[in-house]
C-alpha cells in the first residue's frame, strides 16, 4: 500500500523537478532519462491503483494527519482516477516523444523537462484534490507552466501568445479567488465535500454570484467561447509536444475543475443551461474559424476548442448518458488530439511557413507522420472504425435522450464543417504534387513509438469500445453520485 499511494502522483514529480538540475550536474543524459522513469512509474501506479479500485470506495488520502474537512485530502475515485490514469499515460508518451527532441533543434531540455514534470504534477493535483483552494493553486501551476513553455521558442511570436494567455489567466485567477473568498465566508470551510453539504444554506443570490465567478474563471481555463482568444495562439506557438500536453492534459484539468465544481460542490439551478448555450457557441465559433485557417496548428487549435465545446455540451445535460458521453469525448479528445499535435509537430517542422498549403504531397516524403495525421483526422471527425465515432454516437444518443433535437442537428452540421477542413488537409497530404523546397525531418524512433502507441489505442478502442466503456460507466456513476462522494470524504457526517 505504501508503494502505491496517490500522494506520489504529486510528491514524486515535484521532488524530481526540484532535483533535476542537480542530476544534470552529475551526468547530462540523466536529465532526459530520469523524467521518463518517473513518468513510467506514475503511469504504473495509476494503472495499478485504478484497476484495483473497489467500486464505491474511493481512496481518500488525508494530508498531515488531519481528516477532512480540516486537512487537505486527495480523492482517487473512479472518476478522478480515470483522468489521472489518462494524464499519466499521455505524460509518459509525451516524454517518449520528446526524449531526444534535441536532435531536431530542441535545446534547453533541462528547463523543458523540469516544467513538464511540474505541469504533470499540477494537472494531476487539480484532478485529485478535494480542496477548492488547493485546486486553485494547482490550476495556477499548470497556468504558469503554460506561460513558460508557450514562450519556449524564441524565433516565433511565442511571447505574444504567452502574454495573451497570461493576461486572461490572471483574470481567471482573480475571479476564482473572489469566488473562493465569498464561498469561504459563507460556509467557513474549503473542503469540497464540506462545502457541498453546507452550500445548500447559502443565500441564492450570493450563490449565483459565486457560481458566475467560478463559471467565468474556470471557463477561461476550459476554453469557453468568448474567453478563448488565447487558445489558438498558445497552441500554435508552443512546441509540438507542449501543444499536445495542452490538449491532452491541461484542457482536461480545466474542464475537470469546471464540472467538479458544478456537479459536486455548488448545486445551482440554471448553470447547466448556461453551459449548454456557451458550449454550443464555443463549438460554432471555433469550428467555423477553423474552417478558414491557413496554418495547420491554428486549425488544430480551433478544432480543439470545438471539441471542448462539445464536451461542455455533453456535461451540460446533467444526465448519466451525458456524463458518459462527455467522458468518452474527453478520452477521445485527449488521445486523438495528442496524436494530431505530435504528428503535426514534425509536419510543420519540415515546412517553412507552417501553412497548410505547404503540406502538398507530404504523404510521399513523410509517409509515417502523414499516416498518423490522417488516422487522427479520421478519428477526430468521428468516422468508424476509430474511437472518435463511439464518442460522437454516445454524445448524440445522450442529446436525443434530453430531447434536444436542434442540438443534434447543430452538432452534426458543425461536424460536416469539421470533415471539410480535415479532409482538405488529407487531400493535400496525399493527393497533391509536392513542392520542391522542403527539407524533410523524419521523426525519430521514439517519436514513432509514441505515435504508434496512440494509433493503436485509437484503433483498438474504435474496434472494441468496451475496452473502456466499463470504466467510463463507473466514473459516470461516481460523478453523478454526489451524496456518495460526500459520504466517502466525510464518513462521520450525518446527512440530514
Amino acid at each position: 500500500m505504501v508503494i502505491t499511494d496517490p500522494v506520489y502522483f504529486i510528491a514524486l514529480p515535484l521532488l524530481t523537478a526540484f532535483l533535476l538540475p542537480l542530476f544534470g550536474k552529475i551526468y547530462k543524459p540523466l536529465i532526459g532519462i530520469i523524467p521518463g522513469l518517473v513518468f513510467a512509474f506514475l503511469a504504473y501506479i495509476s494503472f495499478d491503483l485504478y484497476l484495483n479500485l473497489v467500486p464505491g470506495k474511493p481512496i481518500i488520502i488525508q494530508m498531515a494527519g488531519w481528516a477532512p474537512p480540516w486537512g487537505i485530502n486527495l480523492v482517487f475515485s473512479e472518476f478522478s482516477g480515470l483522468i489521472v490514469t489518462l494524464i499519466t499515460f499521455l505524460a509518459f508518451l509525451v516524454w517518449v516523444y520528446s526524449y531526444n527532441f534535441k536532435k531536431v533543434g530542441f535545446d534547453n531540455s533541462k528547463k523543458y523537462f523540469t516544467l513538464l514534470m511540474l505541469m504533470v504534477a499540477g494537472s494531476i493535483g487539480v484532478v485529485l484534490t478535494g480542496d477548492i483552494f488547493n485546486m486553485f493553486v494547482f490550476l495556477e501551476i499548470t497556468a504558469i507552466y503554460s506561460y513558460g513553455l508557450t514562450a519556449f521558442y524564441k524565433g516565433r511570436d511565442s511571447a505574444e501568445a504567452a502574454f495573451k494567455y497570461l493576461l486572461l489567466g490572471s483574470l481567471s485567477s482573480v475571479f476564482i479567488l473572489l469566488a473562493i473568498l465569498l464561498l469561504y465566508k459563507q460556509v467557513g470551510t474549503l473542503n469540497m465535500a464540506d462545502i457541498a453539504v453546507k452550500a445548500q444554506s447559502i443565500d441564492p443570490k450570493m450563490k449565483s454570484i459565486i457560481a458566475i465567478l467560478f463559471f467565468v474563471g474556470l471557463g477561461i481555463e476550459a476554453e469557453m467561447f468568448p474567453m478563448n482568444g488565447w487558445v489558438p495562439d498558445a497552441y500554435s506557438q508552443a512546441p509540438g509536444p507542449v501543444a499536445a500536453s495542452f490538449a491532452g492534459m491541461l484542457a482536461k484539468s480545466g474542464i475537470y475543475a469546471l464540472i467538479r465544481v458544478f456537479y459536486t460542490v455548488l448545486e445551482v439551478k440554471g448553470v447547466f443551461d448556461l453551459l449548454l448555450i456557451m458550449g454550443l457557441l464555443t463549438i460554432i465559433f471555433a469550428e467555423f474559424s477553423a474552417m478558414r485557417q491557413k496554418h495547420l496548428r491554428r486549425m488544430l487549435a480551433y478544432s480543439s476548442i470545438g471539441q471542448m465545446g462539445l464536451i461542455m455540451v455533453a456535461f451540460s445535460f446533467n444526465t448519466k448518458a451525458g456524463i458518459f458521453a462527455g467522458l468518452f469525448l474527453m478520452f477521445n479528445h485527449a488521445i486523438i488530439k495528442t496524436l494530431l499535435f505530435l504528428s503535426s509537430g514534425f509536419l510543420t517542422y519540415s515546412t517553412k511557413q507552417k501553412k497548410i498549403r505547404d503540406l502538398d504531397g507530404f504523404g510521399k516524403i513523410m509517409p509515417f507522420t502523414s499516416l498518423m495525421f490522417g488516422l487522427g483526422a479520421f478519428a477526430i471527425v468521428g468516422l468508424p472504425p476509430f474511437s472518435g465515432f463511439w464518442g460522437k454516437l454516445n454524445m448524440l444518443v445522450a442529446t436525443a435522450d434530453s430531447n434536444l433535437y436542434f442540438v443534434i442537428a447543430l452538432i452534426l452540421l458543425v461536424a460536416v464543417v469539421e470533415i471539410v477542413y480535415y479532409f482538405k488537409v488529407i487531400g493535400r497530404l496525399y493527393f497533391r504534387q509536392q513542392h520542391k523546397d522542403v527539407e524533410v525531418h523524419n521523426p525519430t524512433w521514439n517519436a514513432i513509438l509514441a505515435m504508434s502507441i496512440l494509433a493503436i489505442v485509437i484503433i483498438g478502442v474504435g474496434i472494441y469500445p468496451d475496452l473502456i466503456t466499463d470504466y467510463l460507466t463507473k466514473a459516470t456513476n461516481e460523478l453523478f453520485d454526489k451524496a456518495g462522494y460526500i459520504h466517502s470524504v466525510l464518513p462521520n457526517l450525518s446527512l440530514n
Partner: protein
Amino acid sequence: MNSLVLLILIIAGGALLSYFGHKINKILGNITVFAVALIIPIYWFTQVDFTETVSFTVSGFHMELGYNMYGKLFSMIVMILSPLALIYAIGYMKDQKKLATFYFSFLFSILGMTGILMSRDFVSLFIFWEIMTWSSYLLVIFLGKDVQKTGIKYMVFSAIGAYAMLMAIVIIYKNTGSMMLSDYFGSFAGFTLQTKLLTGILLLLGFAVKSAVMPLHVWAPGAYSNTPMAYTSVFSGALSKMGIYGLGFVVVNLFAQANLEIVGYVLAWMGAITAVLATFSAVFQHDAKKLLAYSSIAQLGYIVTGIGIGTELSIMAGLYLAVLHAAFKGVLFMVVGAVERQAGTTDMNVVSGLARKMPFTFFTALIAIIALAGIPPLGGFVGKWMLYESLINNSNFLMVIMIFLSSTAAFLYCFKFLFGLFLGQQEPEFDHVKEASPVMIIPMLLLSVFLLVTGAYPGIVFKYVAEGMTNLGFHDVNWQMSVLTNAWGDSVNVQHVYLSVVVVFVAFLIFITWRGYKHSTKISTKDISSSGEMIKPEDNMTYAMDFYKPFQRVLQPILKWKINKYYEDFGKGLEALFDFMRRIYTGNGQTYAVYVIIFLAILLIFSKSIFGY
C-alpha cells in the same frame, strides 16, 4: 466460426494483404489482389449461410448481423461486380502508383457494402456506411484531379447524408430504446406523425444522397468521372445501389405501410425529374466519362421512381433495373477505362473510330449500350416495360411521359457514345492503339454474357428480385422465366423477340461487313470537299464534334439552369460568413480581456433570469 464474421474478416484481411503485398512488390501485390478477388465471391456463393446471424453488444448497443433476402439480392450485385472490377483493375491500374492505397480502399469499400447489406441494426449499418464513404472518398481523390472541388463536394454531400441518417438513428433510439431495424419498423406505426416524418425523411435523405437523387446529385458527375474507372464501375454499379437498398426498405416498409405514400410519391417525382435533367445533360457531354456519369444519374432516377411508386410491379421493375444497371454500367465504365488506357483520352471530340482497333471492347460496349437504351432484345427493355406499365397502372401519366422522354433522349447519348468512341473515321494519331489486355477484357466479356443471357431469360434476375421482395412485404410476386404479361392479360415471350432480333441483327451485321469490305476505301477525315474552304490540319473534324448542336440550341434554357451554381454560391456565402465570424479573434490580447469582462457583466446582469433565484 460464424460465416458472416468470417466473410468480413476475409475481406478486411484481403485488404491488408493487398496493401502490404503492394508495398513489397507489384507482382506479389497483383497476385494477392487476384487471389482475393477470387476467394471473396467463391466464399460468398459457397460457404456463407444466409440464415445465420451473429449478435454482440458494443458500448451498450445491441448489434446484429444477418442476411435477409432483400440484402442478399444487393449483395449479389456487389459480389459479382466488385471482384470482376478488381480483376479489371489489375490490368487497368498497371502503370499507376500508390497501388497499395488503391486496393486497400477498394477492398474496404467492398467491406463497407457487404456490411451494410447484412446489418440488422442501425449502428452497424452506420459504421459500414461510413467505412464505405471514406474508402470511396479516398478513391475519388486518388488521381489527384480536382481534389479540393470534387473530393470535398463528394465528402460534404456524403457527410450530410450520413449525418442525416445518424440524426435519424439517435432519434429512433430515443423513441424505441433499441437500435434494431426490425424494432423500428415494428413500432413505426405507434410514433407521432412528427417523429414518423422526422426519422423517415432523415433516413430517406441519407440514402438519397448516395443514389444521387435530383437536388443532391451534384457530387456525382465529378466523382464518377475523376475516380479511376476500375472503381467507377463499382461506384456507379454497386455503391450507388446502397442508396437504393435503403430507399427500398424505408419507402416500402415505413411510409407505404403507415399511409404516407405521399412521401414515396414525391420521391418518385424527384426520380423522374432527375432522369430527365440528367439525360439532357448527358447528351451534350463530350467527355465519355462525364456522359456515362450523367447517364448513371439518369438511370438511378428510373430506379428511384420505381421504388418510390411502391407497387409490386414498380418495385420489381426498380430492383430489376438496379441489377441490370450494375451490369451494363459496370461494363461501360470498364470500356471507357480501356479506351482511356489504350488511347490516352476519352474526349469524344478527339478520339474516334476505335472499333477496328479494339474489337472486343467495342463488342461489349455495343451489348451494354443496347441493354442501357432498352432496345428490345436485351434486358433493359424488360425493365422499362415493367416500369411504364406500373406507372400507367397507377395512372401517373405525366410521369410516364417524363420517363418516356428521358429514355428516348437516352438514345441520343447512347448513339453519341458508341459513334464517338468506336465508329466514325479513325484519326491517324490513333493508329498505334491496341486492344486492351485480356485481364481487362475478360471481366467485360463476362458481364456482357450476363447481359445477353438476361435478354432471353430475365427470369433469372426475377427469381432473386422476387425473393428479395418477400422482405419488403410482397410475398407472392408473379414472375415467369421469359414471359412478360401486362395488366390486360396480353403476354409476350421475350425469347421469341430475342431470337428474331438476334437473327436479323446478325444477318445485317454480316451483310454490312461484307459490303464494307467490298466497297469501302479508307480516307482521312481531312479529305473532304468543303465548298472552297480550306481544311486546316488542326481543325477538329471528328465525328462527335458538335454532335447535337441543334438540340443544344433548343434546350438552352433548361441547360442553363445549373443547380451546382447555387450550391457553390451557398458555399461561398458560408465561407464569407465564417471569415466574418472569426474576426472576433482580433489578435489583441486586451480585447480578449475586455470580452471576459463584458461576459462577466452580462452574466451578472442576467443572473436573476439564468439562475432563477
